[in-house]
């Protein structure tokens, strides 16, 4: 993958810097320009995080740990994290559970979630173009599905670590590359006539798609945020099996079944298991073993739900459907 298209002065500045490294490695680039807006900042941060996943063909791999690059990344991450925390602080039913109450509090948070359901529309009324647009947006994350949570493994206490591995093993296909979830999604993209390469649709990614990806990378990359990363994982898994079933029905209705339906079909069954592991064995034991993580677990879960709600609301605008 090549660096994405810049969306303003900041991302242009960042991508120029990335492409010119390491020739400019002794160079002190000075302060980065102020972003032209949220999309400019979001695509810049998305690319900076990408250095820790697959990198770019036109960027030297050493850029990932270049101090000048890390300095920009940190400013953008601080800005994103404070925005996410402000949203959580403003959430009316926000709770601060004791460690034992964490699983129940997560269930309550998910039960209260009343964001629009894109899967419902896919099942009933969305047309082919609308579904393809949704899949293009989803591809930005699904092609690296589960990877951000893997970074958290070495940072967890014994019980949560074993449980996360039990879950991730299944995400990664139980040893069978054909069942690796991100690979199943890539095959699904090909089957519906879309491009399967990693990052193929980043230039089309909506602000909400980018922010959703940046948030999960932020939580996965920082040990400090391990509780939030696991809360995010739990909320994601807890809101997956029923919508995945609707996705299967919708894809079949539109004759887009086959490999793409197989991807969602796998999630119906897998995520009904994963949600139990994530809720009790990962988040529950993490809260017991490291009580100071309890609130962040909820913060992470809220963030996952809130980002999906923002994304769904935006997709409805794109689809021109009133919510």
């Amino acid at each position, binding site marked *: 993958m090549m660096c994405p298209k810049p969306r303003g002065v900041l991302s242009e500045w960042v991508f120029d810097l990335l492409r010119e490294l390491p020739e400019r490695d002794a160079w002190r680039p000075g302060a980065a320009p102020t972003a032209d807006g949220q999309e400019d900042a979001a695509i810049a941060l998305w690319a900076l995080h990408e250095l820790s996943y697959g990198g770019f063909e036109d960027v030297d791999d050493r850029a990932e740990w270049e101090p000048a690059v890390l300095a920009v990344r940190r400013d953008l991450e601080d800005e994103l994290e404070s925005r996410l925390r402000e949203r959580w602080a403003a959430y009316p039913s926000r709770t601060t559970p004791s460690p034992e109450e964490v699983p129940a509090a997560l269930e309550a948070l998910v039960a209260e979630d009343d964001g629009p359901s894109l899967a419902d529309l896919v099942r009933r009324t969305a047309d082919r173009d609308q579904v393809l647009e949704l899949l293009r947006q989803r591809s930005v994350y699904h092609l690296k599905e589960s990877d951000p949570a893997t970074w958290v493994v070495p940072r967890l206490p014994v019980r949560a670590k074993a449980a996360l591995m039990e879950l991730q093993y299944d995400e990664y296909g139980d040893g069978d590359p054909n069942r690796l979830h991100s690979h199943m999604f890539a095959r699904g993209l090909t089957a519906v006539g879309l491009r399967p390469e990693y990052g193929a649709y980043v230039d089309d990614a909506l602000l909400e798609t980018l922010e959703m990806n940046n948030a999960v990378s932020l939580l996965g990359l920082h040990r400090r945020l391990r509780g939030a990363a696991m809360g995010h994982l739990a909320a994601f898994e807890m809101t997956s099996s*029923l919508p995945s079933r609707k996705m299967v029905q919708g894809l079949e209705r539109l004759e887009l079944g086959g490999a793409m339906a197989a991807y969602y079909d796998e999630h119906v*069954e897998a*995520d*009904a*298991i994963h949600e*139990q592991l994530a809720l009790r064995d990962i988040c529950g034991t993490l809260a017991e*073993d490291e009580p100071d993580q309890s609130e962040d677990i909820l913060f992470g879960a809220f963030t996952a739900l809130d980002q999906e709600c923002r994304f769904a609301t935006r997709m409805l605008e794109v689809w021109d459907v009133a919510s």
Partner: protein
Amino acid sequence: MTPPPREPEERIEHPDLVVVPDGPLLVRGAASIQDAEGRVHEVVRPVVALCRCDKSSRLPWCDGTHKVIPR
């Protein structure tokens, strides 16, 4: 700040069968499961969730439907 390490425990409980309250039965380490119709399903995952509410669309597995059943 890093929390102080926990005392290593002798043996951490890790049951093979776990009943989830108002949810499925988690089964660890099974190779195959026979459903109520007598069909045998091969198990490829380390853990599976068997439906206990009988409302799943893909019995014998849980598909999350139990969450939308009024209790």
